């Protein structure tokens, strides 16, 4: 139903107008969507566009500074940093989008249940979420990855788990304030079942504030994966991934090979920045009241 509504809204040409208006209103949102578009293009087509095989080593040209041949220089195994940075986009976006999607879904369900029905269920769920929050989240992610092994799936799971409480709490609060709203009473009078009221009437209205959280989390998920890579619990080599590239490149900064860390770092930062700046725009798009 939610998907149907979204699709319905997208089909509607009014939605496109709405989108354009939101872009025009705020230069930063415009910039963010532009960057998002750029990253999506790179993620989809990147592997076909890059000049070199990101995995091909050639020690003869190791550690060369940026040049026409190698825009971002080469790394310690002679791999083209530019190609690696571009190809990594897909993996990094996948990790963050999947992780956030997972925590979004699970968090929404838990939060909705706790917020709508309240009572012991609420207390129980809230305590569990508090317990997760009481962990230093990054360390919890480290622990999970260390325990389960450092595969991409496990990184996604770990990132998702540490993000669940944020969604759950937010949804819980948003559902709670709407639980007694009169449009919810009206929906009851209209014969909607409890689940239907929750899923169709209340939950979609929590989306605008959730979108801000989603965008922040998308960025944070990338940083989280990068941090895991930095301490050696990240993606396995030789897979190109920004975090691991920064982490490995960091050791080369002092010796003067700055391009190894700088370019992936820059990309990482731009991606996170894009997601973070996206928040307000996304919220406005999901808010029907912003429509004219």
């Amino acid at each position, binding site marked *: 139903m939610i998907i149907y509504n979204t699709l319905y809204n997208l089909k509607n040409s009014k939605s496109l107008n709405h989108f354009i208006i939101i872009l025009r209103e705020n230069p930063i949102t415009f910039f963010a969507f532009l960057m998002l578009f750029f990253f999506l293009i790179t993620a989809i087509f990147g592997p076909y566009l890059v000049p070199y095989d990101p995995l091909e080593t050639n020690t003869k040209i190791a550690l060369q500074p940026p040049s026409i041949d190698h825009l971002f220089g080469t790394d310690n195994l002679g791999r083209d940093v530019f190609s690696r940075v571009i190809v990594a986009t897909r993996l990094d976006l996948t990790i963050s989008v999947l992780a956030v999607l997972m925590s979004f879904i699970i968090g929404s369900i838990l939060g909705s249940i706790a917020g709508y029905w309240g009572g012991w269920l609420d207390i129980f769920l809230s305590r569990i979420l508090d317990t997760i929050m009481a962990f230093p989240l990054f360390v919890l992610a480290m622990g999970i990855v260390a325990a389960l092994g450092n595969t991409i799936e496990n990184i996604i799971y770990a990132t998702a788990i540490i993000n669940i409480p944020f969604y759950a709490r937010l949804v819980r609060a948003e559902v709670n304030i709407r639980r007694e709203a009169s449009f919810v009473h009206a929906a009851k009078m209209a014969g909607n079942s409890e689940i239907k009221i929750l899923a169709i009437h209340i939950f979609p209205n929590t989306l605008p504030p959730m979108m801000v959280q989603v965008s922040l989390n998308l960025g944070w998920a990338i940083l989280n994966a990068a941090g895991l890579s930095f301490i050696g619990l990240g993606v396995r080599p030789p897979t190109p991934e920004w975090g691991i590239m920064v982490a490995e490149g960091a050791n*080369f900064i002092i010796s003067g090979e700055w391009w190894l860390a700088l370019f992936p770092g820059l990309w990482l930062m731009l991606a996170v920045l894009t997601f973070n700046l996206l928040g307000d725009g996304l919220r406005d798009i999901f808010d029907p009241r912003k429509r004219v």
Partner: protein
Amino acid sequence: MNKSITRRNFVKTGLAGAAVLPFLKSMPALASKSNTLVVVTGQTINSLDLHRKGTNRASYQVAVNCYDRLLSFGTKKAKGGGYSYDYNKIEPELAESWVVSDDGLLITFKIKKNATFWDGSKVTANDVKWSFDRAVSVGGFPSVQMKAGGLVRPDQFTAINEETFTIKLDKPSKLTIPDLAVPVPFIINATVAKANATTKDPWAMEYLHKNPAGSGAFKVLKWSPGEQLVYERNDNWVGGPTPAVKRVVVREVPSSATRRALIEKGDVQLSFGIPDKDAAELANKVDVFSTPIENCMHVLCTNRKFEPFQDADVRKAIAYAVPYEDIFKAAAYGRGSKLWGGEKTIQDIAWPRKSPYYTDLDKAKEHMQKSKYKDGFEVPLSISLGLSSWMEPTALLIQESLSKIGIKVTVEKIPGASWRTAALVEKKLAFHLENFGGWLNTPDYYFFWAYKEGHLFNSSNYRNEEIESLVDSTLHIPMDDPKYKPNIIRMFEIAFEDLPRIPLYQPALNVAANGSEGYEFWFHRQLDVRPLSST
């Protein structure tokens, strides 16, 4: 120690020499060049007692610097610059003299008369006996190392009188004397230790863990685990020439980039164990000592439990496919020694030595064609996260190269904690990198650990009957025994033919000095601060 060194008396003792100066809140004067040396390392010292269970390798330096042994090795000029210990030259430390009986079963030591512990009490044969008893009784690594020299039971050790100590051996071994010069059989102040022992803890493990009680060249002034260890000179040391510096601060800095910056800027005088890359790049800026580590090799292991590796042609194909030169450049930055492209026939017993293999993809393909695995196979190549600085580039290069002969390799990173269990204890890694180095510098010692079935570093599950008997018969005979050389050469031949371990290169231990001199390399790969001085 921790209790007794409060800040006040730290200042008192530390600044005794500088008492004329106005009272200093900071120690710039104290840290002035000639008095104090600052060393940085990436490792953490986790105990001051080598005998304790769980003591890590970085902590062995405390045994070297703070305690004395009966014997020590001499010094020689090292290959990579600076000095090195000399395996062939045994020198006295606490012993004044020693005599080996003709049958080689009884060794009698005379202890230096003027040797005293830090608390002023005399070093006696009873202290030596107690310390040796402790080393063979506590189990774990110390006892295993003692056993290598034939030292197994307390009843082998006797304190004849205050200054005379004897060791009885079950059978003579060329390894006994050198084994007394390794860090393990260090001599503890038994009186102090016993005073702090309990019935539950007869060897005073808890006490000595934090409070060293020795006679060595340096005392521990301050120890903050994970942060720093401060050594202070023992002016009454008799084990060797009095150290030139009064104080040595060993600071732990985990980030290698930071360590590099520190040494490059001259903020520290010595950086211990720097990465090969930094060593190569810093060589013309500061003094860099890259000593090839004796009896140590970086190797690629083919586990016999993994079926394709039971095929000799597969192993040879791999040995010809490995991009040695690239690895040496990318992983070792040209530091250390090359171990490929050696002579076909073996004339000498130098070890580590070049294997007869070299990078030749045609030959590699030839061998693959001969094997049962013409179409190739898939195998995970495991590396340890803790050693990723060399293992990772090496693995990636091997991965790429082997793909050309049809072997599909996936690189598998294993966290440092599980590495040992998986690789050495359970020996379940099909294809992996390994870096064993033997303390006692003889090839048979290396073979004992790395080629005998069931032994810890034989992570390839290799078994060869001839090697088994060769090692057993060679390990304890003296090197000038006529059987020695032929036996060793035979071992080499088998090892290169069977290839459970494909040698890649001999790594170097890199140390950068900027404002200090006198660095000496030791087989235990820990820093001996005693010969250091500042420039």
